[in-house]
């Protein structure tokens, strides 16, 4: 099992486990867990087109997470 940090922002904050602070939680997951697996585990609706970074750079949903990785997830957002 490995520990990864998951950070959820904006309207995704509601999917954080209880007692999470500062948009963050630490999850213990099996080796080989992917980014997509985390979304399913946190029950984030699959129809939301998510924006995510692994260790603060862009990654794909199939990316396998390593111990200590940080996954940051945003809903579709825009700005200027």
């Amino acid at each position, binding site marked *: 099992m490995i520990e990864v940090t998951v*950070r959820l*922002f*904006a*309207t995704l*904050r509601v999917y954080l486990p209880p007692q999470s602070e*500062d*948009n963050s939680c630490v999850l213990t997951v099996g080796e080989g867990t992917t980014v997509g697996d985390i979304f399913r585990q946190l029950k984030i609706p699959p129809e*939301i*087109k998510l*924006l995510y*970074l692994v260790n*603060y*750079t*862009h990654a794909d949903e199939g990316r396998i997470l390593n111990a200590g990785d940080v996954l*940051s997830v*945003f*809903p*579709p*957002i*825009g*700005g*200027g």
Partner: protein
Amino acid sequence: MSKLLRVDMGAQKIVFIEELGEYADFGGRGLTSVIVSKEVPPTCHPLGEKNKLVFAPGILSGTTAANSGRLSIGAKSPLTGGIKESNVGGTAAAKLARLQINGIIVEGKAPEKEIHYLLINEDGAALHSAEEYKGMKNYDLAEKLKAKHGEKVTVVSIGPAGEMRLAASSVAVTDTKGRPSRHAGRGGLGAVMGSKGLKAIVIDDTGAPGVEYADKEAFTEAAKVFRDALTSHDVTKPGGGLATYGTAVLVNVINEAGALPTRNFTSGRFEGAEKISGEAIHDIIEERGGSTTHSGCTNCIIQCSNIYLDKAKNYLTGGLEYETIWAFGADCGVDDPDIIAQADRLCDDIGLDTIEIGSTIAVAMAGGLLSFGDGEGMLDLIRQAGDGTPLGRIIGSGVASAGRVFGVTDVPVVKSQSMPAYDPRAVKGVGVTYATSPMGADHTSGYAVATNIMRVGGFVDPLKSEGQAELSRNLQISTAFLDSAGLCVFVAFAILDIEEGFKAIPKMVSAKTGKNFTVDDLLKYGRDVIRAERNFNFAAGFTKFDDRLPEFFKEKKLPPHDVIFDVTDDELDSVHDY
């Protein structure tokens, strides 16, 4: 019948022109840039008699098209020394369009110490003395002019900064609630307005004839497809990303991506980011009874704006945006949202560009004038700019001159305009736009952040140099057209992903004008506008060496990704090679 107004501030004469000639096909930025490039000598003094200040609603302003309320203001910029189009929302564009006014060309200058305002209504246009409003800040001014001319009028105005001709001064436009919270901020056009002795333009569209459509039915059909694209896309739809958190949502996004310029562009990560994030501001607004979802601009369905109350639950400011939060927040090392909101209100009242002023204070901090993180000191400097103290005038003159005054080497400008809220080393696509836009360091003119960070219209890795020149080029071209159509650039989030929405735009233009307008025409229009702007800049003395980023971006690695800007000079020179 569409017309142009020529307002001669020297002779105090106004002429309505119905023969539009070569200006007939243009609107918004297209019109302002074509007029400036034809009528303003490129080497003239921007605060002298020969500069012209042009106000133009977009081609689709005043129609039923969603998000068509943008106004373009153009001139030779006293900040950059090149051509400028400064774009603003609010309520002016739709009213001018309904009065069938395609543009207002303000020329010459009033006699020294005289100041006037222009009243435009269904009966015509007239200049009035603004002596009693001299030195007045924008909020008071809007209240007084509305009391005089009607609560529903739009007020376009300068505050004391524009009257003092400060290079970072803005032009304010009242929003849907009648508050001067929308600003044409970039490029110091408030100073041009002040140099001409024009304090305000009051627009009353009561009884206006409305816009004319060549084919109303075809227009309505295309407008529906366009609107549907906006209401179905996750970013722009009601209850979507922009409606819920506004542009402030970007604070955490750009911080996570390691691209949030912190303490004068020394890092891409700010430890105080969460305190000033869109989420934090959303929670504060909700708790105090403000509004997190608000349309500041005519016909807007995206509703990205907000209304922020202070601790005593009184109105403090509206339209507290990402750029402002960044400039007075991360860039200055300040993590208190109430201080940032006060800075926003001060700038709106005094009539200053929040991007330029926040960044100027950050440069002053880098030069040791005050410490990073000194929020009260920051507010004091803004107040001084409004009062015209010598130090205040330095602050109001922008980043490039502050860099010289305070002996700072790492000065984040292109063509002397300060860089917005994305470090070009970590978002290389927008870095290309900063370097190559005729406007100077400008983010909206080719908002590559959408594709570099938000995966809108595809994905181009922000940390690599590949693909950035082409991305910036394509966005600059389409944006030059959007800016001419009077459309809010936020429609891009929807239309870059929804092709039918994009195609609906030339269809709306065809149906309104009666002239066949295709996607190819749209792109050609954008290229023609940029070409006119670049030609003006070359004639004003610019060279390809002005299409570059400052040295430190190419040499100093930006943490946390430890990246430099490595898009080559040849690639930068290829951007406008068409």
